[in-house]
């Protein structure tokens, strides 16, 4: 940034290269303190007005609206993203609640189904058992009846066998067959 101006005294760093014996006098300015040198005021003000006017125009018309729009867009984006995140969270919460409800419903239903099934099976088993018992009872009754009949038949046969045996015995002993009526009377008398 050194100024390319050969007319002025060298920059301060160059002062170290002073030739021995040479004395340099501070004659770079014409006596007046440079910042108060009024001959440059008008030009400075004009250049200041031009430069600052240009700067103001650039800032006002281009830079500041652009930066503002960038910041605004970013704020909007952040807000939208946060809103979306909030909405998604709400949705997720709702889904969680729905899941809990569904789970509870399903558990209740499962319990109901299990209970119903248990009841049905119990009823069915009961009915089967009853039917079997009835069948068995019926068979038992039939069997008993058969036994009783057979016994009776057998007892009847005993009387006739006893009658025949008695007739045979009497015939052998007496040589003559006893008549039927006498035999029956004798049998009845001994039957009890």
């Amino acid at each position: 940034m050194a100024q390319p101006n050969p007319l002025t005294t060298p920059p301060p760093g160059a002062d170290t290269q002073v030739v021995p014996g040479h004395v340099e006098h501070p004659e770079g300015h014409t006596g007046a303190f440079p910042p108060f040198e009024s001959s440059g005021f008008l030009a400075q003000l004009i250049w200041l007005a031009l430069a600052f006017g240009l700067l103001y125009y650039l800032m006002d018309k281009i830079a500041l609206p652009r930066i503002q729009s960038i910041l605004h867009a970013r704020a909007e984006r952040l807000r939208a993203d946060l809103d979306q995140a909030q909405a998604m969270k709400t949705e997720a919460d709702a889904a969680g609640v729905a899941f809990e409800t569904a789970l509870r419903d399903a558990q209740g239903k499962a319990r109901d189904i299990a209970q119903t099934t248990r009841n049905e099976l119990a009823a069915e088993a009961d009915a089967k058992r009853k039917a079997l018992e009835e069948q068995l009872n019926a068979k038992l009754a039939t069997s008993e009846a058969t036994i009783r009949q057979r016994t009776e038949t057998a007892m009847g046969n005993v009387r006739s066998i006893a009658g025949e045996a008695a007739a045979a015995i009497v015939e052998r002993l007496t040589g003559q067959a006893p008549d039927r009526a006498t035999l029956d009377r004798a049998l009845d008398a001994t039957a009890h």
Partner: protein
Amino acid sequence: MAVTIDPIEQFELKPLVSLGHIGHQQLAFTQSALYMFAAVGVIALITIVATSSRSIVPGRMQSLAEIFYEFIADTLHQSTGDGGKRFMPLVFSLFMFVLILNLFGMIPYAFAVTSHLIVTFGLAALVISTVVIFGVMKHGTHFFGLFVPSGVPKPLLAILVPIEIISFISRPISLSVRLFANMLAGHIAMKIFAFFVVQLLLAGAWSVLSPLPLFLTIALTALEFLVAALQAYVFATLTAIYLNDALHPGH
């Protein structure tokens, strides 16, 4: 062996292109003007070129422009409230202009434009005329109520009103002199202390002391960077405070 240095030579205007004279006034494109336009260029680079991509996720330069913008917008909002938004371009331009010119002055061999009173006075005059013109346009004669503190007994007003007027008139002076004097004094001090290093180095046995002014120069340079930024901030903040008077003249 003597080495001399002129600590104020650095403030001299050097005409690059001479455009003639109007009476006593020398019209020339000086290095001062060159630095002003260079500052405009650098500011445009930061705030326009670097923001041209309009990234949602900013790069370094765009980030810098956004930081400056938000910093000045906050400062302005704190001083003037919502009504001050229209002055954002003015305050932002002033802050960036003064900041970049001050920092330019920190580059070795460079020229500090803000060390010229006429430049800082020009900027201060712009601020105060904005305050007065806007204040009168918006509030009419009510703007001059600024000089009449409310809730003060009538006899006291005779003393207070002149004081208020003087304090108002001294604003552009203090605004411009503060910046100018800080820059001028800082640059002179840096130059003198840096020169002490050279003088001691050439003074035979005394050269063992030369690190002392060197450290001072380093410390002063750091301080001057702080001053460069701080004075730009002070200039912008005071501008915002003065503009608040134009917006809300009631005491």
